[in-house]
């Protein structure tokens, strides 16, 4: 905008005023609605499922069934049907696993962190974010199984007294991984569910048939008494506090899967914070992508407004800067150290076989950060959609580079390898993407996508106040 044109000051002001007030007008629009209208606006799109919806579901189910076939094929014939090989023991499976764990991070980040900091703009997007966490984790949780050579023996990793007289090795990062992911999945699911109870009660009061039965069951008899609200609030606050260290530990542990080996480039202490930053970055970007799509498909324009995307865009940008920082912090040390093996790996990544992937990663992760500094781009949903998608392409590439790039090059050049995924891996990866979308789509049709009670609470707690020529929102957060 034209801050740098002091001469034009007066003429610009009304324009800015009108533009700014547009956001407030959007807000006012909601403020003028009655609770019943809000309920209806949220519930209406849930109940209406047109042919488009069913076609989408059918396609997704088809992809999932194909992916399941591919998985069965791989289990039956052996892992060799996938492109993983000696020495690239881990391939797309593990890369996608990290990707999903990463995606899952934004949900908690938005919901818990912003709840603690009482950021008001979180309200309409928390549920979408939490659902994203839960479903992304569900998909991530599939990969340890997919990736097992003998998946039918997966329970050997569980600590229970058994006739094998074997106890799992808790020194193995995979055990930490399993426990941490399970914890995070439980935590995020319960967190999602707890905040959902009042809205389920609302849905119960406005539905009939199977939906009524469903909502009634899961509303657990919620009436909205003061005591219930009070306890819910306390529980959510406690949850927010507990889940943050869990979310930090989960991705750290995923990073330690790599960092505890003595593989060059993996064996690094920056890997854990780097993974976390990347996870937040990709997760926030994915959240923005999803919100743009859901907003359109479920006509939630009133709830998911430009101010939210603006704020989210800023967060994505900040996370992106953080990612760049951590990447560089790791890179410069490796580069300066000039260890021959790492030098070779870096060379291979930047100028060698992996260069296309590397430059895709850098472009897709750095460019959006620059673009997102502009308010106009942040609030332009098409741009936002494109940029956040790009970020996730970049972050996925980064996961592939970390896993594959560092496995196909190691200390002895004789043992280097190359990796090309086969249809099996691609189908299975596609299956989890389709599975995520399907779960999310179904979720959004079954459960109020927007946390109605939180919006109403927010509406209750802010008012507009006139300061000079501006209408300024003021919020009351007295707990």
């Amino acid at each position: 905008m034209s801050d740098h044109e002091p001469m034009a000051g007066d003429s610009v002001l009304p324009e800015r005023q009108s533009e700014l007030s547009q956001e407030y007008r959007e807000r006012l629009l909601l403020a003028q609605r009655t609770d019943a209208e809000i309920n209806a606006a949220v519930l209406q799109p849930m109940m209406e499922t047109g042919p488009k919806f069913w076609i989408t579901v059918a396609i997704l189910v088809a992809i999932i069934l194909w992916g399941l076939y591919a998985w069965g094929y791989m289990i039956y014939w052996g892992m060799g049907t996938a492109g993983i090989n000696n020495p690239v023991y881990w391939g797309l499976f593990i890369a996608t696993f990290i990707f999903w764990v990463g995606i899952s991070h934004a949900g908690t980040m938005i919901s818990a962190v912003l709840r603690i900091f009482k950021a008001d703009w979180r309200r309409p997007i928390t549920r979408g974010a939490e659902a994203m966490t839960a479903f992304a984790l569900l998909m991530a949780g599939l990969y340890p199984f997919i990736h097992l050579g003998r998946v039918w023996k997966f329970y050997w990793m569980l600590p229970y007294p058994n006739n094998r007289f074997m106890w799992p090795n808790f020194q193995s990062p995979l055990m930490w991984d399993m426990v941490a992911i399970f914890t995070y999945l439980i935590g995020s699911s319960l967190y999602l569910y707890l905040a959902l109870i009042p809205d389920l009660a609302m849905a119960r009061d406005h539905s009939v048939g199977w939906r009524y039965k469903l909502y009634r069951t899961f509303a657990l008899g919620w009436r909205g008494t003061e005591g219930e609200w009070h306890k819910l609030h306390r529980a959510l606050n406690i949850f927010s506090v507990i889940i943050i260290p869990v979310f930090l530990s989960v991705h750290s542990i995923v990073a330690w899967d790599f960092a505890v080996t003595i593989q060059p480039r993996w064996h690094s202490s920056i890997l854990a914070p780097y993974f976390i930053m990347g996870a937040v970055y990709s997760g926030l970007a994915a959240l923005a992508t999803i919100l743009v799509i859901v907003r359109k498909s479920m006509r939630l324009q009133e709830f998911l407004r430009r101010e939210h995307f603006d704020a989210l865009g800023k967060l994505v940008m900040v996370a992106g800067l953080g990612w760049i920082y951590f990447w560089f912090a790791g890179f410069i040390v490796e580069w300066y150290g000039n260890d021959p093996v790492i030098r070779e790996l870096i060379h291979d990544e930047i100028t060698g076989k992996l260069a296309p992937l590397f430059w895709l990663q850098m472009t897709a992760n750095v460019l959006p950060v620059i673009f997102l500094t502009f308010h106009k781009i942040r609030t332009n949903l098409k741009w936002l959609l494109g940029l956040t998608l790009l970020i996730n392409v970049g972050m996925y590439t980064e996961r592939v580079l970390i896993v594959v790039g560092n496995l196909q090059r190691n200390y002895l050049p004789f043992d280097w390898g190359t990796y090309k995924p086969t249809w099996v891996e691609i189908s299975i990866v596609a299956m989890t993407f389709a599975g995520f979308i399907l779960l999310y789509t179904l979720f959004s049709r079954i459960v109020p996508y927007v946390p109605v009670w939180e919006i109403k609470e927010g509406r209750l707690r802010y008012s507009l106040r006139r300061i000079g020529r501006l209408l300024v929102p003021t919020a009351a957060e007295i707990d």
Partner: protein
Amino acid sequence: MEDTMNLMGLFHDGNETAQVIDSLYELGMVDRQIIVMTGVPYPERSLGRHVEWLRLPNIVLAGALVGFILGLFLAVITPHLYRLDIGGHPTVGFPPAAVITFVFTMMAAIVSTFVGVLWEMNFPEFSPKYYDNRVTDGYLAVLVEHDPSEESLVRKIFEAHGCDFIQRPERRPL
């Protein structure tokens, strides 16, 4: 049942509701007799009610402690119960044990928060209760359990504060 009656008033304004509650207190009612149901969480004390003390933090702490012990047990004790000679290498290390113990602590804390809050709310509870669907449409419902003799007084208080609907509530399954 015979000696008390229930009356429910639906209000659309929080201030009025707070005043209704004040008036009911003046009438000599106690907290137990008044239940306020809202579709929106009103900040505590905004309706002039006292806040009850919660056991939830203690439950969470207890849960976390159990988780800590469980984690410690799994990471440190069980390798000694299921002894395996791994060539003289230690089967337990501090950092892995720390990770496992931490995560188990967190897991137990999370689960105990959830279970604890449900416990505190007496959930799940599907038996018939006094309720009105309009609560989720933005009305504040004040449910008063009173002596039959007080019914007119309560009605008066409700009407005086712009009560939208006054009714004898029915128990309905939730």
